[in-house]
């Protein structure tokens, strides 16, 4: 017997999913209303053979991977720093969390206009200050810039989770390892890191879900360009269906994105899921 809650949830997910699947088999362009017809897998073929798709796929993976690396490494370092007793601990911790409360659109705009702008941006001023040519981040290293912006947003989340993990480490274990002759480095590798592995897994899984669908930051800063240099799958789907008015192609892209997300999820669970077992 399916309970009403399960039915509701199924309906909630199945209706949009099946509509998307349905659209993905139609030639459906908003510029030609009433001309929809069944075209089989043509939309998929078109989407998957588009060179932009492979570029977007690579960008998506680079974006997810880059942000994960920065946030995990940076988050661990920050958590280690924040765990030290220091003056004004409470305020510093709140400040560290602050970026998480800034909306993606806003933070991307701030980064674009106030930091990375080649004329007025802070980085440009700094470069000029030391006599260097200002670097136009968003046009010369668009993907890297976006990775930086997104990483900045997610760093607090990672730091916070890793900090709580760090604080739950039994002090006596650290003292025991100290007596056992472990120096700071070995203590970190043999005691602290294994203790934090579960928290790191959680951070990786949660962030991956959100990072696969980064969109606002790209729309606001580079519009996926130059060319397709900073287009990820999510942005490609958007461009396909709403910039080129090709709902059929967009839907096919959406389904491809769902399948890709599942592949990534299975891959991740295989790789690190065992850390979540007690």
């Amino acid at each position, binding site marked *: 017997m399916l309970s009403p809650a399960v039915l509701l949830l199924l309906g909630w997910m199945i209706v949009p999913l099946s509509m998307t699947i349905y659209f993905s088999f139609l030639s459906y362009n908003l510029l030609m209303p009433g001309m929809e017809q069944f075209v089989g897998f043509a939309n998929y073929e078109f989407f998957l053979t588009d060179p932009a798709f492979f570029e977007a796929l690579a960008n998506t993976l680079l974006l997810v991977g880059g942000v994960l690396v920065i946030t995990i490494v940076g988050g661990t370092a920050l958590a280690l720093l924040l765990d030290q007793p220091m003056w004004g601990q409470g305020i510093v911790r709140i400040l560290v969390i602050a970026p998480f409360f800034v909306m993606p659109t806003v933070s991307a705009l701030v980064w674009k206009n106030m930091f990375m702008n080649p004329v007025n941006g802070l980085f440009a001023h700094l470069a000029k200050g030391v006599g260097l040519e200002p670097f136009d981040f968003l046009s010369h290293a668009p993907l890297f810039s976006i990775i930086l912006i997104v990483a900045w947003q997610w760093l607090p989340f990672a730091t916070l989770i890793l900090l709580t993990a760090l604080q739950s480490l039994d002090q006596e*274990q650290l003292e025991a*390892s100290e*007596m056992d002759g*472990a120096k700071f480095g070995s203590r970190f590798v043999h005691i602290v890191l294994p203790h934090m592995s579960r928290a790191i897994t959680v951070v990786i899984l949660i962030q991956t879900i959100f990072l696969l669908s980064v969109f606002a930051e790209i729309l606001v800063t580079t519009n996926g360009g130059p060319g397709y240099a900073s287009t990820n799958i999510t942005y490609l789907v958007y461009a396909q269906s709403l910039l080129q008015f090709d709902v059929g192609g967009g839907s096919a892209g959406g389904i491809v994105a769902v399948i890709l997300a599942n592949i990534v999820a299975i891959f991740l669970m295989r790789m690190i899921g065992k850390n979540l077992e007690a």
Partner: protein
Amino acid sequence: MGKISLRQVTKTFGDVEVIPALDLDIEDGEFVVFVGPSGCGKSTLLRLIAGLEDVTGGHIEIDGRPATDVPPAKRGLAMVFQSYALYPHMSVRKNISFPLKMAKMDPAEQERRVNAAARTLNLTDYLDRRPGQLSGGQRQRVAIGRAIVREPSAFLFDEPLSNLDAALRVNMRLEISELHQSLKTTMIYVTHDQVEAMTMADKIVVLRAGRIEQVGSPLELYRAPRNLFVAGFIGSPKMNVISGEKAAEHGAHTIGIRPEHLLLAQDGAWSGRVGVAEHLGSDTFLHVHVEGLDPLTVRVQGEAGVSHGDAVRLSPMPEHLHRFDENGLAVR
């Protein structure tokens, strides 16, 4: 080797003085027990010796060499923590070999020492398990194993048995004593259980509020406590303490008499009424209410043959009477 000396060692946390200046000598091969009530600074003292806390003042010498500024790992001491502090993600084997690995010892020698320790501690069958899959007593043995493979010059134990149930505690107590007999290494053992102190120690150090009240062998402390605090702390059940008129009769401000040194006698000096009687089989503890005194505990061998409400007369054995002056110090 394992001779440890503390010279005028003090420790303050913030502006709270936990250990006022303290001198202590621990001889090579001795089993020394620190006892005292909760919060008296036993753990702090042990951690000062281990180097996990820095001394505020004074000097520590280990084997005649100054150790005050030597980091914990270099002092050649091994510590067994109350919570065991095993590394949860490592197997028992890895836990025990961790200090050897950190010392970059040859793997074959590591293997040999781990196996030897496992044999001594009956852990051979558990070497590939994780600490989470062991019982409390087994975890305790792993913690001890991790300490013995280093072949330290002294072992430090901080209430190692307090998380175990009573039966297991008796067992482990014997095992640790056994270990001391076979290794002949200095051991410093912290407990607030005076039975552990009496049964295991070569030398007991009684602490109160960071001060050493008395140092001596278990029987010295039992026979000749230096003051009322030690008298009340060592011995079970507690010594009866009597002051006022009855003490003055014996020429002291306060007198103390252990329950086993009070006799039920027809012509006893003190008359009272039996309250609760605790039957242990081998002994009976009678709580006797004597006019004008706190209830006295009397230990009677076997069955006492008296019951609640009976009138009895008590007679203290004169040779076991402890006399104290108005400051609580023993008068001899």
